[in-house]
């Protein structure tokens, strides 16, 4: 059996701050990322995503639990793990006084690549990230999104076996985000494995083979985007404008969520025409669309918050 790219068991982390109360950021997270997979970690702000990523990437010591990367102990033998990984840190910035070209190239050289390989890989990553035009401009003079692209280019250029990307596309325009997705897909085709976090659920859906939703330091749900969406009780969303006041009439069709005066009803296709009839009779406008991952996320996490 081939070893998993990442296997985490019961990882706990309690931050102890001077003067302040201790913060339990992770309360026993277990997860597996198979070699060649793209996995997304989702969760609200403060859920523990960055904490988990840093522990897995040998940058933070957990309070307890174990993490292995390709069978090597990431906590006790970080030296064996580090050559196989690369990290896009959350809110990282390139060296302001290097150009993107120098930044990517010098990073690859520091990782031990030869001049020729580093040069070729840097050029390819810069072009994939659409940085060719600004490749010789100091990063201090780049826009926020261009800097973020430089950080991503630096890391994807490594084609490391396991890549950790913490909110890699933050601040990027829709074209740049799609370039990142394309590069990450290409990397996994060539054998790399990817664990990323994102708050863009369309990105998580477009990019990842599997998702973990983390909430208050625990894994709430694990599965594919499709299975998560199925889990919330319907594959279609009917949005009834001004329908919130008639929520009771629609309750029998499926689960209902109000959003201002609009009512969203999640249903399965066979009941669609029946529901539309009710809406037409009440002289309301209804829009039909597929359930999105965002809805699944809001429902799943919302339910868990309600239960607290």
């Amino acid at each position, binding site marked *: 059996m081939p070893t998993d790219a990442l296997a985490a068991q019961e990882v706990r982390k309690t931050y102890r701050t001077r003067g302040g109360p201790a913060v339990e950021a992770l309360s026993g997270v277990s997860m597996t990322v198979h070699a060649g997979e793209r996995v997304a970690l989702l969760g609200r702000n403060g859920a523990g995503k960055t904490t988990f990523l840093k522990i897995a990437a040998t*940058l933070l010591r957990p309070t307890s639990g174990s993490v292995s990367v390709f069978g090597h102990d990431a906590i006790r033998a970080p030296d064996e793990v*580090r050559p196989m990984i690369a990290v896009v*840190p959350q809110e990282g910035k390139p060296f302001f*006084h*290097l150009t993107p070209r120098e930044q990517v190239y010098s990073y690859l050289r*520091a990782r031990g690549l030869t001049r020729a390989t580093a040069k070729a890989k840097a050029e390819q990553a810069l072009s994939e990230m659409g940085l060719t035009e600004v490749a010789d401009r100091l990063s201090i003079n780049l826009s926020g999104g261009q800097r973020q692209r430089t950080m991503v280019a630096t890391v994807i250029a490594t084609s490391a076996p396991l890549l950790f990307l913490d909110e890699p596309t933050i601040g990027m325009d829709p074209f740049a985000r799609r370039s990142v997705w394309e590069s990450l897909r290409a990397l996994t085709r060539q054998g790399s494995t990817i664990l990323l976090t994102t708050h863009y659920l369309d990105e998580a859906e477009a990019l990842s083979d599997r998702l973990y939703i983390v909430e208050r330091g625990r894994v709430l749900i694990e599965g594919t985007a499709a299975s998560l969406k199925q889990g919330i009780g319907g594959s279609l969303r009917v949005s009834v404008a001004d329908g919130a006041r008639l929520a009771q009439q629609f309750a029998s069709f499926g689960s209902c969520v109000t959003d201002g005066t609009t009512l969203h009803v999640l249903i399965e296709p066979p009941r669609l025409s029946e529901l539309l009839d009710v809406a037409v009779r009440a002289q309301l406008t209804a829009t039909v669309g597929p359930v999105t991952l965002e809805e699944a996320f809001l429902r799943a996490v919302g339910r868990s918050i309600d239960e607290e």
Partner: protein
Amino acid sequence: MALPAPAFRGTVAFSAAESRVQLHEGVAIFSSMITQAVVLVFVWVLARSLLPVAVFGAIIFSMFTFGQRVLNEAAYIRVDHKLNELYLASPLTPESYFLGIAVGVLVAYLGPTLLLVALAALWVGFTPALALELLLTATAVWLFSSSLGYVLSTLFRDMRAIWSYAAILYNLFGVLPPVFYPVGLFPAPLRPVALVLPPSAAADLLQNALHPGVLTPGEVGLAAAALATASLGMFLFALVWARRTAQEA
């Protein structure tokens, strides 16, 4: 220290990038020399005969302030840029990461210090023995202060806190003790303190080389032993510390 070849290759590449980054800060490089230049002007005006002592002191002081640059740079790229995460989660070892910053800063800032060395050659002239002693003491002070700077950099989570601490540290240990002025003018009961602090130990050893007899043989032994112990000890500690803090607690 025996670094495996690939790790060493990474250090060179990383320190080259660091130097390049530092060299963009022309004003910082200029300002790194301003204290030394001002002190030398004061001495020129007030007591010209002390210029040889002061210029050697200025060289040692420069080596000492490189540690302050290491402190600033290591903290800045960690706190503001999170580049430590990029470099530490990579084949570059934590030791090489620390060394890369230290060497990168040295290369970028060494230029103006070499001007001071040229002045020293002009005013004093170098015997091979004096040149060797300068090389050894200056290296020891650099090793000590860069190691200390890196270790301290890991303790801060906010850049603003650093500036005030660094100013205290570098003035207290670099300006106050007899670095720029003769050790003979320092209060006698406190001489042992001056002789164990690395910057003044180095400067006073050089003063003794310029004017044999300003230190007793016992004091020479004390200063040399203290300097060697402090620089090697701090360097080894920084290597261990770099590895420990690569994985935050």
